């Protein structure tokens, strides 16, 4: 089977990997690097459980072929907390709001929220943004409707949405 040698920097740590070219980034993380925080919920980019940050942007890692991203920098749920163990504000907010039940979609929700708040801070509109001209760079100004729309790629079958949205709104507002 064809393999490629690539380098991935994951959560600040460099990994040299020889990978089957068919390997998704998700499977490389889970089966090769034993970083199982990113979850496989559908393997088709339909649920968001595998969301990680690839060069700072949120992606469904099941849809990313690892060998196409030689040299990339990746942040997974395992890399969000501070080295001293202090949780990322979104992680803390998810615990405090009980914004999860089974926990399987949670790493994807949190990574997605990190990416989403950065998109909002960069002024990216969403399909429900009413005024595209107005200053949209303040995440604190995101309405619940904006958060719901921007997070809709991340399914939660336990139905924790009613707690995820306020958890994200809390963190957006604190910044």
């Amino acid at each position: 089977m064809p393999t490629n040698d690539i380098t991935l920097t994951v959560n600040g740590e460099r990994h040299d990997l020889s990978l089957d070219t068919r390997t998704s980034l998700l499977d490389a993380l889970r089966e090769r690097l034993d970083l199982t925080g990113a979850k496989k919920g559908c393997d088709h980019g339909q649920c968001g459980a595998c969301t990680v940050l690839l060069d700072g942007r949120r992606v469904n890692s099941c849809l990313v072929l690892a060998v196409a991203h030689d040299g990339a920098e990746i942040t997974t749920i395992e890399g969000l907390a501070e080295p001293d163990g202090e949780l990322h504000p979104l992680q803390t907010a998810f615990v405090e709001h009980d914004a999860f039940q089974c926990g399987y979609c949670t790493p994807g929700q949190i990574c997605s929220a990190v990416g989403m708040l950065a998109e909002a801070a960069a002024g990216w509109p969403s399909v429900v943004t009413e005024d595209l001209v107005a200053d949209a760079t303040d995440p604190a100004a995101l309405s619940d409707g904006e958060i719901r729309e921007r997070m809709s790629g991340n399914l939660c079958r336990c139905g924790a949405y009613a707690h995820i949205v306020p958890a994200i709104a809390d963190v957006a507002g604190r910044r």
Partner: protein
Amino acid sequence: MSAVGSLAIGTPTDRVEGREKVTGAARYAFEQLPGDHAYAWLVQSEIASGEILSLDASPALAQEGVVAVAWAGNAPRVAEVDDRELSVLQSRTISYRGQIVAVVVAESLETAREAAAHVRIDYEVRDHEVVLDEHDPAIYDPGTVNAGYPSESVQGDVARALARADAAVDVTYRTPAFHNNAMEPHATVALWDGDDLTLYDSNQGASTVRDTLAQVFELEPEQVRVISPHVGGGFGSKGTPRPHVVVAALAARMTGRPVKLAITRQQMFAFTGYRTPTIQRLRLGASGDGQLTAIVHEALQQSSRLREFTEQTAVATRMMYAAPNRRTAHRLARLDVPTPSWMRAPGEAPGMYALESALDELAVELAIDPVELRIRNEPPLDPERGIPFSSRGLVACLRLGAERFGWAERDPTPGVRREGDWLVGTGVAASTYPAYRSPATATARAEGDGSFVVRIAASDIGTGGRTTLTLIAADALDQPAARVTVEIGDSALPRAGLAGGSMGTASWGTAVTLACRALVERIEALGGHVPADGLEAHADSSDEVRATDQGYSRHAYGAQFAEVRVDAVTGEARVSRLLGIFAAGRIINPTTARSQFLGGMTMGLSMALLEESVMDREFGDYLNHDLAGYHVASHADVGELEADWIEELDDHLNPMGSKGIGEIGIVGTAAAIGNAVFHATGRRVRELPLRLDRLLAT
């Protein structure tokens, strides 16, 4: 047994495994790397009925890295058990499309997956019937439905009562097949050590999986260990082991390697269970003042050729409302389809959808407010069994919900509230779910350092069970919760029943309380001194559960209120507001309880507006078998949602005074939403989901 003193119980408490779940440290079944492991990929039948004539594995085996291919022609024999879905790779007969017919084991996931596509199978194809049809001549009375209820019950003379009723409705409601779709697909890692089998498995009860797999492989239960610390949801579909668990163990035995097997989202639509489609006829009769005189609820459902599985759809109708004349009945069609299985509130979810929708139609017919109609038909005793309710908070839930929701200002006229293109309406429905309990065992241990460990093979599939058991143990030990650790999710722990039937906490909590009290007695017998090497007590709740007073009818209740907006142009329906008020005994952990209620309501919203598994009549499989085709509610579908409960003291339940809360949240939601859609539009859609084409149809 009286209720335990309340210190920890009732205190809002964050999940004890919360940090693990938000940091990615919590390991689920597939997340094991034993080192010399191989990967399995399943091959599924491409016909719905027939026989395998031949299977050619050689093109798959020719792929570099393929270790083995197993099918009925070469797999080791296993014992037959009650669930014939578990007799996997044992027969060439095909009972449904998507049935497991072979497994490929390879060095990598990628190779296993590709090689599976190279397995060539020739079939003898038989005609199939896969669509539930009320005119099917083979429909029969199964005699008994799930949970052991008789399929029929009759009281009084319904024909006479219906003929004499001042108002009556005769309506048929249809629900489609629904798939559980937990976020974590079923997965198993199987390892043999001689004749001892270890399974890292995603399930709702490690003891159950252990016992079943021991039967299948003809082992003593002690030879099988099932480890399941974290489970990514189940909603019933992981209640009993699915066939892939057997395949993983077979593949590991054949190859002499640890085998990792995760099924795909698509495969979950074939062999991990689903809720049967239903066709339900409801006939209600009432006097002019709104007293129900007759209730008839008949439910037609499907099962597979392999196994009779009859959802108890009309059973809740037997105790919901007072009516002297009543009949409930279930009928079953056996089709060339996968076996249906448990899905959140089996029976109550589809049955109460139909009953509560029909009741709304009757309220319109009578021109009586639907909250008031329900209150007028509150039964003093369980109408079928003639025994008192241990507690019944339905009326209190309806009243509190109506007040919070602003129901009093509601104009009942349908189709008259318009905001731009949006037609706005509100609806109400009742919820119920039985309060069961099953035997369990537990140990409680005091350590010399003042800490306590409670061990029980319970399961936390997202319910918050680990946290609630910690609170229950803390109170029974009279200790702060911080000193108590609860170990669950491993069949090596004291035997316990499933996280299912909303009876996990009641069942496990009883055993945990007994163990903790026994430990306290042991400590007291030693003058309050715990030896340096600790002290332990074991408890088995069988006697206590067996002694449960059968003279009470035990159920949780709720009332759900929905506000919907339906686009007059496109027919799109949105739920703008949903309020659920529940009466479920003592709420042990308000934090996780609220999440349970809201989660159930969210799934109910999803059931009302989005979900349906569409059977392909020609090919016999569910066409929309992924999360792009089968829509579950997403963030954008869920608006303002609120769940709350009334204080309810009930001494006839268990030491905690609690009722199960995992399922009741989905019961009644779809009816409340459908009733609101009628109020908004004047259209009564009697089939789920409430799709825009149905709302636009005249």
